[in-house]
């Protein structure tokens, strides 16, 4: 594995909210030609690069601006892998569910996290603090179960450790 790739991967995973999503995204929209349906993908890319994701309200605003049905915009946004329709939290939790971690009890950790965070795996907490993901294998099997938050790795995590770990992240 090449030197920077691991760090790069973590940089990508720990997205975090870039800017807080405003009520209206007209400043982003004004960069594009009004009513031009072919600008849809660049518009979605611009909104996402400013605010990290595309919200439901954005969809309607974009629909109005480009004169497109909102259902079409949703169809396009869900087709391409790049677009996120939910914000990433400020911190991204990756709980490894690879084979080694799985049988070392990572499955037991899932409900613990879900209870602490008050959200399900794959979702973001309501206050935007955490996104909780289940990932395949982080490649640190000797320390299973492994939890990775932003660029920190925690090994041998037991259910009692969860609260302590989460407290470190604002």
């Amino acid at each position, binding site marked *: 594995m*090449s*030197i*920077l*790739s691991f760090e790069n991967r973590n940089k990508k995973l720990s997205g975090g909210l870039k800017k807080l999503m405003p009520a209206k995204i007209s400043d982003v929209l004004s960069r594009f030609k009004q009513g031009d*349906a*072919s*600008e*849809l*993908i*660049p518009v*979605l*890319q611009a909104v996402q690069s400013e605010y990290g994701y595309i919200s439901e309200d954005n969809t309607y605003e974009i629909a109005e601006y480009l004169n*497109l049905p909102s259902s*079409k915009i949703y*169809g*396009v946004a869900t*087709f*391409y*892998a*790049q*677009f996120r329709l939910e914000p990433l939290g400020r911190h991204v939790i990756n709980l490894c569910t*690879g*084979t*080694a*971690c*799985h*049988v*070392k009890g990572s499955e037991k950790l899932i409900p613990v996290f879900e209870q602490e965070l008050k959200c399900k795996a794959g979702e973001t907490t309501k206050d935007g603090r955490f996104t909780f993901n289940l990932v395949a294998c982080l490649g640190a*099997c*000797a320390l*299973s179960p492994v939890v990775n938050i932003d660029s920190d790795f925690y090994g041998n995590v037991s259910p009692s450790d969860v609260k302590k770990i989460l407290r470190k992240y604002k």
Partner: protein
Amino acid sequence: MKLKEMKVMTEKISRKKGTTKKTRSTNINEIDKNTNNKNANSKNTNNKIANSKNANSKNTINKKAITLTQDQYRKAKHIQNSKPIIFIGMGTCGLASGAQATFDTFRSEALKYKLDIEIIPVGCVGSCFLEPIVDIKLPGKARVAYKQITSDKVVEIIQRTLQKEEIIREWVLGKYPVEPSSSDEDFSDIPLISDFEFFKNQKKFVLSRCGVVNPRSFEEYIAYEDGFKALAEVLEEANPQKVIDDIKTSGLRGRGGGGFPTGQKWQFCRDAQSPDGQKYVICNADEGDPGAFMDRAVLESDPFSVIEGMIIMGYAIGASKGIIYCRAEYPIAIKQLTNAISICSERGLLGKNILNSGFNFEIEIKKGAGAFVCGEETALIESIEGKRGMPRIKPPYPATYGLYGNPTNINNVETIAQIAKILNYGPAKFAEWGINKSRGTKVFSLTGKIKHAGLVEVPMGITIREIVKIGGGIPNGKKFKAAQIGGPSGGCIPAHLINTPIDYEELKEVGAMMGSGGLVIMDESTCMVDTARFFMKFIQEESCGKCIPCREGTRRLLEILTKLTQKPKNDYEVVDRMKSMISLKELAYVIKDTALCGLGNSAPNPVLTTLNYFRDEYEAHLYENRCPAKACIGLLSFRIDAEKCVGCGLCKLNCPNDAILGEKKQAHYIVEEKCVKCGLCKSNCKFNAVILE
């Protein structure tokens, strides 16, 4: 300067350029040492003079923007540089190997040592296994390339090479030849970079500037290999049909995988009627094949070649708008292209009345959004139109009904990047390379179980065996088993067919296809069933879902292959696996026959070729639940060799599922039912007592 003097000056330079062209042929990459080449060069110079004689009877164009003064030329070629120049390969491969740290260290250390140096980031020369590559041009000396220069080596280079002008032989990759017109000193004992083992048998044509020029420099593009000369001549000739005829003569075929004769494709689009007169040309830079990065290298390292190619293409077809559709996962490529377009617009090479020819042309970059299927022509068009990237039915073909319903021509990056070079070199001469109906060169990204992975550009007709040799052969004493060519749409070529030449038709004969250039080498530790499963999984994830054969069919193929790579848990599953295999071929052929687009109807290729050539492996998986390559974890068992085991207990301690039993100092034992095949025991055992079989 007076007008008359300027005219004399430019003629001197063009004559000089003629001579430098001759020696440029022995610059990094040219391997064809026969006299034809030399004749071609002199013919070119003659043509140029002839052209300039006839210039007045055709289009009067203004070449000022693309003409370099003698000073500019010397600076672009770094002739007689006054201060040391450090060229650092900073394409994505270079960066992944640490080139950014190298760059930063050079900067900071140069300050410390109070050295006045110039650092130029260049692109990718293709030998990825040697990155980061740093070229050093000492003042008035030949340019020398160093290999694997991570940041820890920078200080030594500064101390020895920059301060003491000492070439560190152990780090040398090779030298670039000095410009004959210059008085730069050569290093007689350092071999040419083009003679380096990896490059010796390659034929750099498309990649000739990659890793050599600064991709952000307009002047370097012109200085090296006559950038924009072809465009100027095309505009001067004012004969778009001739351009198409030239491309037809060259025998160039689409390098994106389809292999359709490019000249013919351009002709269709030129002949098509447009409802409002508008036509489009599109560069397909959505390189999605896993393991393929040829286009990325060209876009990052030589973006102006793509721009020039597109303008010529637009002119020949009669299109005034060009779009480059580049996947978003190539941010450096997009950055370099954006810069190149901006410079060209400033200098009058894009926009209205290019070089005073009356031809208008604009290029826009559209970014992909993460869908492999958008590499398919019609899906790409849908994506540009702001829709879901779902392919259209063909006919009608994009040449007649493309973007927004107008005639559109789409070509791959590699195809477009060589248009100008082919016209410069001479289409008939270009057509002399290759065999049968496959002319010119092809760039491959050579990866997998090979000593030296990277980008190789070879003439058509070369055999797979020779390409493997270029890559240094199979490492670790293993043997060649197969070459996967064409990515998820391609097929495997087994060892007994290793002498298959690189030729569109011959590859189809053996069940594979040229593809965009992905070439993965496999040895006996690669499982062919797993390979087929891997590609099918990729296709399934990228399928757009429009047609039933691809959406549903590839999922079922994937399930059948996945079942094969796992042990059946009960009798029902045993029978199920057998029944699935019986239906596999029929399902694969129906998908091939009926899928709506290229992604779907080539999806079964990996399965069908591996089944054809490695039937025994499939049978071992199916009947014996055994993976001969020992790669399918689902079919393997970990076992402790009682004779080697000393009973240290390390494996038992680390086992995640308490699947190992044993007392201290006594041979341990793995309980198969509890084993989850994580491999921790094997990696921890200091006595090699754990066997995987």
